[in-house]
């Protein structure tokens, strides 16, 4: 299992299923509805099932981004040192995005 590449592959597939299902559900849920006001919007996001679902969505998104951008770097960046540096930057950036999303969702009532 280790080093065979099956772990990122599996993470990509599993996260894609959740991202596709949840993303489509949210899109269909808001389609055709008039734009909400601020109070209705925060109340909707503050519901436990919405904010929890969004927390999982962010987690799946980060994993999906990591695998996708990593394979992009593996294809396009041939110098090992440059690729390693970019991979490090990618991890730092994704961690930052994750913490930012966590703070936002925490404020919204996760």
């Amino acid at each position, binding site marked *: 299992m280790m080093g065979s590449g099956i772990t990122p592959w599996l993470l990509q597939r599993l996260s894609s299923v959740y991202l*596709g299902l949840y993303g489509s559900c949210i899109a269909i849920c808001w389609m055709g509805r008039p734009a909400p006001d601020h109070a209705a*919007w925060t109340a909707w996001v503050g519901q436990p099932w919405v904010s929890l679902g969004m927390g999982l969505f962010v987690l799946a998104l980060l994993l999906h981004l990591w695998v996708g951008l990593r394979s*992009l770097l593996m*294809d396009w960046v041939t110098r090992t040192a440059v690729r390693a540096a970019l991979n490090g930057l990618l991890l730092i950036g994704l961690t930052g*995005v994750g913490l930012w999303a966590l703070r*936002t969702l925490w404020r919204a009532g996760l």
Partner: protein
Amino acid sequence: MVAVRGHGKVYNGPCSEYQNLFMGRYTSVMPARERNKAHLLIGHRPPRPWLSAASLLSSTQRWAGLFLALSTPYFLYSFDLSLRSEAGFTQVLQWVQSLWGRLWTLACVWAFAAHLAAGLRLLLGDLGLGLDREMARRSAWAANLFPWFVVLALLIGWR
């Protein structure tokens, strides 16, 4: 089976449906120098000068994915701003409802639909579905057209 060209022996042996389907993926992602040798590696016919539907789909998925990945901070910023205060919410709503905001949203929806359709096709392929040549070609066409239908439906819905 591997076709060896330029060595006095040309053998285009059978190749599995799995290789047929993912040939597009392989050829679209590799740099041109590798791409022209790809058929030697997996025993496929030489590449056509134009992109196959599977190849077009594969590169669309990659570019759409990169676009979505790069716009993740934008989505997060808008989400954060819209929740933070009444003024921030109004600001985001005004941007989304402006002409450029609508065009931008349309581009994001297109990219999401394209990435989703191509990903769904790959997932079905993992499950062993639609791997024969004809189905692979048809599903590639369908997945290529899907985002345009979504955008068209959205445009009709907005009017």
